């Protein structure tokens, strides 16, 4: 019986190791491997079947292109420290500007040293309008300012930068909720998108981050950064499996053009290479 043949089980063991090394997490790996075993008849097509299983997984939570349901469209960018939020906002503002949208950026990290200067630099490069109240201001007040400005000046898009925060800090998670509440006072459905930025190097804690941020605010998508390194970002499988949050974009470098819409097939190809 081919399924109990040495070749297939050796192939499956190799697959298991590859998936674990990609940060997919034991539970998710076991479920994928079980599916693989039940669908693969010979070891020579195991990789192809695996690709199909993984792509299916990601397509289950895939969402369509972002449409601005009303103007301004408001995006809030959140996540733990150092994942690439500020840089990604630079990239998003470039992407939307080149699509002809008028972009307003809210300098919502009023805490970290030189966070305002860092974001200001990106806005100068992309031509996005930069709204800031300086270091030490109230983050919710800056977000309110930016959305208010966009409303009165009929701008297309507001992107809110927020300070990196560990999901274990209750008061910081409460501050994030407050930023969103304040913005919703101006536009009921805002923020229309809440993008959680996750570093592709992150291990199983990435799942905990997603759970906690989702508990606090309505996370609508993930941006997976630093995929130009050697980490595979397999944690997104565990996140989409358990929480149903789709990956919207990937970061593949430190420059403004280094952002791509998420492509499940390409992502799985890279993961298995």
């Amino acid at each position, binding site marked *: 019986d081919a399924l109990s043949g040495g070749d297939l089980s050796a192939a499956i063991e190799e697959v298991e*190791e590859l998936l*674990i*090394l*990609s*940060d997919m*997490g*034991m539970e998710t790996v076991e479920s994928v491997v079980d599916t693989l075993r039940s669908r693969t008849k010979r070891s020579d097509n195991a990789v192809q079947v695996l690709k199909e299983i993984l792509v299916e997984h990601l397509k289950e939570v895939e969402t369509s292109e972002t449409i601005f349901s009303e103007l301004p469209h408001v995006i809030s960018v959140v996540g*733990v*420290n*150092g*994942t*690439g939020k500020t840089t990604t906002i630079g990239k998003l503002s470039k992407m939307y500007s080149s699509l002809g949208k008028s972009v307003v950026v809210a300098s919502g990290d009023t*805490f*970290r*040293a*030189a966070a305002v*200067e*860092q974001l*200001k*630099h*990106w806005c100068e490069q992309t031509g996005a309008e930069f709204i800031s109240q300086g270091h030490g201001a109230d983050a919710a007040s800056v977000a309110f300012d930016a959305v208010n400005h966009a409303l009165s000046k009929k701008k297309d898009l507001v992107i809110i930068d927020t300070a990196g925060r*560990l*999901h*274990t800090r209750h008061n910081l998670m409460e501050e994030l909720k407050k930023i969103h509440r304040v913005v919703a006072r101006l536009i009921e459905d805002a923020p229309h998108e809440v993008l959680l930025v996750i*570093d592709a*190097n*992150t*291990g*199983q*804690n*990435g799942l*905990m981050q997603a759970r906690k941020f989702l508990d606090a605010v309505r996370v609508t998508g993930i941006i997976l950064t*630093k995929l*130009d*390194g*050697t*980490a*595979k970002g397999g*944690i997104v499988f565990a996140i989409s499996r358990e929480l149903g949050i789709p990956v919207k974009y990937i970061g593949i470098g*430190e420059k403004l053009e280094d952002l791509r819409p998420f492509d499940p097939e390409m992502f799985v190809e890279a993961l298995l290479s």
Partner: protein
Amino acid sequence: MFESLQEKLGRAFRILSGKGRITEKNIEEAVRMVKLSLLEADVNYKVVKEFINRVLEKAVGEEVLRSFSPDQQFIKIVRDELISVLGEKISRLELQSNPSKVVLVGLQGTGKTTSCAKLAYRLKSQGKKPLLVAADVYRPAAIDQLEQLGKQIGIPVCSGDRKNPLGIIRQGIEDATRNVNDVIVFDTAGRLHVDEDMMSEVREIVKIVKPDEVLMVVDSMMGQDAVTSANKFNDALELSGFIVTKLDGDARGGVILSIRHVTGKPVKFVGISEKVDGLEVFHPDRVAGRILG
């Protein structure tokens, strides 16, 4: 179910030994549980395999099978082995020369700039006269970031012409000599271990500085791939140790076991908050408990 590994193992041994004496099969089950727990904690897969083999050898050698409390003896073997790999005694900074020089390196966003300020603050509170050198010319406002932190803690920051990293570090060494600083802490740009140009730049920086310490700053929530970058940085620069950051989060921190195991270099400090006083000396036993979960 928030059961600690110790409780899980205890339960497994009791259930399995309920029918009489402990068997080889019980040990296999215990090993499987430890393996799962370490993988959940982000310890690298290959490191887990090697670690488990060492534990098995010890378990056989110490005749856990014949012990009165096999679960406790087994977990003790695991814990002791973990602590011995993590580093038995707390490792300190080796500052031999005058001025002594410490260079911080690592991947993007791990906490290098913040850790430079924390280290300088710690050295100042120990009576030293540190100088900070801002050699990251790539990230927007990176130099501003270190300058602002330096101002907060009353420590001077050298930024040279703000354009050329090698020029900046040479300026820093000159300034330190002129102002009689006894220790210099150098911040460098985040870089990928697969970026040839940036790796050759950091090799050049280390060659010019001839530092007493080259510390790689690693994020405690990193997963399986951490060993790749740790190995590459260690091969390129001969690291003297690590700083592991963001331990105030709830990542289990298995990356610490991995990087320690594959490079043999000690973890010298851990970052436990975003503030300048958020740096602690590495305690292997505390981290062991955290990794085991």
